[in-house]
């Protein structure tokens, strides 16, 4: 007759069975994180965890003892007591006391988490169907952050990188030692912006603004990865976040670089590009921003996302093709890419879509045509 310790034995055996070397990267527990808030949440988590473990040990101890000794096979005679007001009072009062003891630290931590006053930097975070957009208020810096894990890695055609599904093209750069306020909203459905190491998680709700904050202490510069934490549709699992904490000096330099890059991109749009240049750049833009839905070979995804190979739009009237890529198609998952891609990228990807996979219409869409269409 197996006894009830089997349940503990099985979980212990399980972790021993796996090679001890693999144990190293087995993430067993909540990250302690790098901020004060994440540390106090971790301490709260462990405090309540140990309280539950001790209550469990006491209650299950009594239970297993009684299972072992009070058996019919051991000739135990059943006593008939079934009422004791004293005991009832005891196990109502003691849990209440324990709960109050838990509630006090929990309240202080929660109050601390809700204090979004006197912040140095404000970052507006907007959730889109299946990517995050960041705008640094008052700094005139804003960009989209797309997943860079390739479709080949996802569909097992090539080996998976170290940060599989947790890598993006543009990181959210923040200075350490400063109080940063996040203004979180959404553009379509409900998402949730979550980076475990800094213990920030807040729902992004269309039409409403939620706020949260973080102070990454000095010396904790580095990359912190997170994901969307609220079901938001097909690619809910494919819209990660990479927060890059840098020293305040590096942050200022980064801001200047961002503004310069934006101007350079705007200026480049005025120059002219050859068909080949647009095609090569278009392939790269397509892989990053379009392949997730329309497929690597433009084959589409069943009836959810239309195929581009031989599609009437991609081989038909060019103006309609430009319009749908710039303004999107309301009521479908096809978004407006005008704000997300530069004029050069837009021209390149549309040229690529019109000439790749046998769609060779021979058209070349130039950045100037995109600028005119945007007017």
């Amino acid at each position, binding site marked *: 007759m197996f006894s009830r310790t089997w349940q503990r034995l099985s979980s212990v055996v399980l972790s021993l069975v796996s090679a001890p070397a693999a144990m190293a990267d087995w993430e067993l527990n909540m990250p302690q994180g790098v901020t004060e808030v994440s540390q106090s949440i971790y301490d709260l988590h462990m405090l309540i965890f140990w309280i539950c473990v001790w209550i469990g040990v006491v209650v299950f101890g009594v239970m297993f003892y009684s299972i072992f000794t009070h058996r019919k096979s051991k000739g135990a005679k059943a006593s008939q007591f079934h009422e004791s007001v004293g005991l*009832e009072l005891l196990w109502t009062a003691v849990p209440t006391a324990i709960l109050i003891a838990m509630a006090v630290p929990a309240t202080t931590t929660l109050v601390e988490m809700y204090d979004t006053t006197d912040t140095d930097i404000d970052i507006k975070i907007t959730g889109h169907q299946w990517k995050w957009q960041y705008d640094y208020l008052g700094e005139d810096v804003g960009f989209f952050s797309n997943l860079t894990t390739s479709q080949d890695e996802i569909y097992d055609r090539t080996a998976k990188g170290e940060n599989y599904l947790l890598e993006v093209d543009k990181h959210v750069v923040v200075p350490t030692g400063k109080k940063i306020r996040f203004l979180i909203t959404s553009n379509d459905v409900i998402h949730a912006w979550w980076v475990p190491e800094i213990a920030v998680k807040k729902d992004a709700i269309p039409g409403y603004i939620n706020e949260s904050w973080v102070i990454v202490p000095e010396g904790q510069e580095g990359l912190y990865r997170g994901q969307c934490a609220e079901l938001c549709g097909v690619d809910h699992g494919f819209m990660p976040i990479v927060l890059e904490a840098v020293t305040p000096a590096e942050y200022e330099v980064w801001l200047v670089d961002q503004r310069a890059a934006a101007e350079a991109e705007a200026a480049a749009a005025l120059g002219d590009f050859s068909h080949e240049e647009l095609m090569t750049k278009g392939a790269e833009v397509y892989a990053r921003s379009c392949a997730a839905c329309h497929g690597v070979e433009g084959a589409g995804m069943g009836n959810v996302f239309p195929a581009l190979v031989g599609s009437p739009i991609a081989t038909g009237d060019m103006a309609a093709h430009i319009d749908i890529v710039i303004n999107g198609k309301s009521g479908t998952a096809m978004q407006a890419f005008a704000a997300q891609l530069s004029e050069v990228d837009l021209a390149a990807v549309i040229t690529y879509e019109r000439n790749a996979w046998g769609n060779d219409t021979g058209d070349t869409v130039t950045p100037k045509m995109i600028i005119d269409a945007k007017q």
Partner: protein
Amino acid sequence: MPQQKSGWRWFLSYAQSVLAGLIGIQSNEKREQDLNEGGLERLIYIGLGTLVVFVLIVVTAVNSALPD
């Protein structure tokens, strides 16, 4: 309908049942009396009374815990 005690004594016994509901302990006679007099209907009203008192307790706890 069972005979209705005078307003004040009815309220007292109702309040006592509500408090007992809060801590989950009540003498058997009081419980039998509650049941025989009003049956399940009375238990539901006592339950609602307990719920209201419980919400008031938690709201006061929240207001005292809030930073002002």
